[in-house]
C-alpha cells in the first residue's frame, strides 16, 4: 500500500481527495489503478504527470518499484531550460 498525494489541479478529478491509498508495486500499476478508480485522471496522467517516489522524481520510468509505505507525489511534468 502506498499513499499518493495529488497536485491541487487533480484533486477535483479524484472526488476532491488530496491523498489516496493505493495497492501498487510499480509506478505503472499505480497509474493504471488511479485511472481505473478515477477516469477523470486519465488525460492528466497520460499527458503531463511526473511521479515523485520518496523524494526522487520520475518523469518516464514507470517500471520503478514502489517500496511498501513509499511516499508518492504526482506532480506536473516539469519544463527545463
Amino acid at each position, binding site marked *: 500500500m502506498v499513499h499518493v498525494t495529488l497536485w491541487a*489541479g487533480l484533486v*477535483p478529478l479524484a472526488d476532491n481527495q488530496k491523498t489516496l491509498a493505493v495497492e501498487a508495486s510499480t509506478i505503472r500499476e499505480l497509474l493504471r489503478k488511479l485511472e481505473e478508480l478515477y477516469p477523470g485522471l486519465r488525460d492528466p496522467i497520460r499527458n503531463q504527470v511526473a511521479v515523485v517516489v*520518496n523524494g*526522487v*522524481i520520475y*518523469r518516464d520510468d514507470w517500471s520503478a518499484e514502489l517500496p511498501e509505505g513509499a*511516499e508518492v507525489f504526482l506532480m506536473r511534468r*516539469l519544463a*527545463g*531550460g
Partner: protein
Amino acid sequence: MSFDAAYKKQAFKSVGTRPLRPDGVDKVTGRARYGADFNMPGQLVARVLRSPHAHARIKRIDTARAEAVRGVKAIITAADLPDLTNGDAALFAILDNCMARTKARYDGHAVAAVAAIDEKAAKEALGLIEVDYEVLPHVVDVDAAMQPDAPILDETVFTTGVEPAPKAPSNVANRSEFGHGDIEAGFAQADIIVERSFKTEQAHQGYIEPHACVASCNPDGTADLWVCTQGHFVYRQNCADLLGLEVSKLRVTSSEIGGGFGGKTHVWAEPVALALSRKAGRPVKLVMSREEVFRASGPTSATSIDVKIGARKDGKITAASATLRYTNGPYGDMWAELGAMTSFACYDLENVKTVGFEVLVNRPKVSAYRAPSAPMAAFAVESAIDELAQEIGMDAVELRIQNAASEGTRSSYGPVYGPIGIGPTLEAAKAHPHMSAPLGRNQGRGMACGFWFNFGGQTCTDLNINSDGTVTLAVGTVDVGGSRASLSLIAAEELGIDYQDIKAVIADTATLGYNDMTDGSRGTFSSSMATISAARNAIEVMRKRAALTWDIPLEDVQWKDGHAHAAGTKYGNLAPLSVKDIAAKSGNTGGPIAGHSELVADGAGVSFATHICDVEVDPETGSTRVVRYTVIQDAGKAVHPSYVEGQYQGGAAQGIGWALNEEYVYGDDGRLQNPGFLDYRIPVCSDLPMIDTQILEIPNPNHPYGVRGVGETSIVPPLAAIANAVSNAVGVRMAHIPMSPPRILSALNRKTGS
C-alpha cells in the same frame, strides 16, 4: 530499466580530467557549422511578415500582389497550416504562435511568410501583402492584465485551479498552490515579519545564434530539416504533428548550437519553413534576424511577487508565504507554477504556502530560460530572507544554515527530500575567504541560495568500436555545453582507452532512437548513463570475441583496464588483448563490434547552489559594477571540471545581465522598443569580473558515477545575490529587477528625499 544506475564509488582515470574539447578548434577557426551555415542547391530564402500591433483581429489577408513579384515561389498564411492538433491545447498554442490564425496576439506575431529566389524579392513581397487588422486594446503588464477591466486576450480562457469554476473569461489561465502546515499559526509565532513586493522585467535568453533552419520537402512525401535546436527529436515530433507528416518521413539534423538556454526547446520558424518548402517544392532557408528573435521568440516571464516571512528572534523561520504572478505571453502554461514550487525549496519550513497565477499578456509566448521561473522566485524570497537577517541582527549565511532543508525535510512543493546539497554549499560559503574579504567605498556584499529540480529522460546511444580500435560515440542529446568532451571521457573511462581515441557525434533522427529534449540539465547526466550502458554492452561483445580468439570459455575472460584477460593460471601464456587487438580481428570473430543503449534516465536529483557577490555602485550615475563573484554548487561528480566551471560561470554571467540591465521595454502602443543588442544590453567580458567557482562533489545515488546535472541551477541565485549586494551598498532595499542605473538613482533619491 535493466541498467543498474546505482552509484558505486570508484577511482577514476579519465573522468575528472580536463582535456581539450573536441569541437573547440572548429569553433574558434570558424569551421563549425551553425544553423545558418547549411545550404542546399536551389534553396529559397524565406522571410516572415509580422504584426505591428500588440493585439489585433486579422480580418483579411490578400497575398495576390505579393505573389506576382518576380522570384516569389510561395506565400503561406495560417490557411496553409491547417489545425491538426485534435484538441491538444499545448500543440495548438505552438501552431498559433508559429502563424497567427484569427488574431495577432503580440507585436511581432507572424501573420504570413514568403519564399523567394533571393532576399530582395522576399522583402518586396512582404511589403505587398495586405493585412486588414482590427486593432484591439492590449495589455503587457502582469498586474494590469489581472485587473477586472483589463482587455481579455482570449475569450475561451477561464481560470482553472479555482473553485467554483469562474463563469467569465480571464487573463489568468491557472492558479496553482503548494505548501503545508498553517501559515497563520506560524506567523502568530513570529517575533519579526518581513513583507515586501517585488517585480522582475522580462528577459531574453540572449543566445548569440539566431534561430535558423533549412527545410526540404520532397515529392515522395519525405522531408529533411537542418536546424539549430536543443532537441531535434522533439522538433521532429512537433513539426510532424503540425504538418501531418509521418515521423519516420521527417529527418531532422541538428547543427552546432550558438546558445539555447531553453529558448531552443520550442519550434518557432521550423514549421513555417517546412510549409513554405512543401508549397514551393524547393528547399527553403529561414534565418531570423536579431529583431525577430527578440520580438517573436523565447523570452522568460515578467513577474510580480509578494513575499511574507516570519521568524523568531533566534532565527527560526515560523512561516513563509508567496504569491507569484508570471506573464505567459498569450498562451497559458506553467511558469508561475514552477516559481511557486521552487520559491522556498531551499528551506525546512513547518508552515509554508505559495500561490502561482499564470497571466496572459500581449507579449511573445514565454519559453523556458535556464531553470525556468526559479530565478525570479529566488530573487523575491532570498531578498526577503536577507532583510529578515538584518532585522534580526543575524548573519545572512547563519540564518540560512539554521533554516536550510536537509535529508528528511518536507519540501515546500510536497515531497520529502533524500540526500541534498544545500547545507554543504552554505557551509562552504561560510568558510570561503570571499565572505570575510574587506569591502571598499560604495561597495556592498550579498549572497543567496538557489534550487532547481534537474531531470533526465528518454535517451538512446550507440557506441561503435572501429576496426582500428578507435570508438565512435553517437548520442542524441545536443552538445549545448561541452557534452561531447564529457561523454568521451565517460566512454574512455568505461572502455579503459584514451580520450583521444573517442569521437563523439550528435546523430540525426533517422540514425538513432528517440531522445528527449536537451533540457533540465540532463545532457551529460542522461547521455553519460546511456554511454556507460552502451560501453558495458560493447565490453560484453569484446569479451566474447576474446573468448573466440583464444578458444576458451567466455566465463574465463575478464575485462580489466581496457583489456580482456584470460583468468586463471591455466592461461598464463595468453597476453591480454586490448580494444585495438580485438577490433583488428573483429571481421573474423563475428563482424563489427558495437554497444547500444536505450534507457530512461530518471533520478537526476535536485540541485542547490550558493552565490556570493560584491558590487560597487556609483552614487552619481547609479551604475553598478560587479567586482567579485563566487559560485558554489554541487556537481555530484564533475566529469570535465572545466566545463562544470563554465556552466557555473555562464549562469552567473547571465544572471548578472538580468539583474543589472536586461529588460524588455514596451511603448504605450504595446510595441517592443529595444529589439536589439544595442538597446537590450547583455554583459560582455569587460562588464564581468573573473567568476570564481567551487565545485562540491556529493555523489548522486542514482547515477553510476554520481553525476548530477549542472547547467541550470547557476542562474537561480544571481538576481538575489546581486540585489542583496546592491541593497547593502546603497542602503535601500532594491525590489525591482533589473537594477538599472535609473532605478538605482531613483532609489537613492527616495532615500535622500530629493
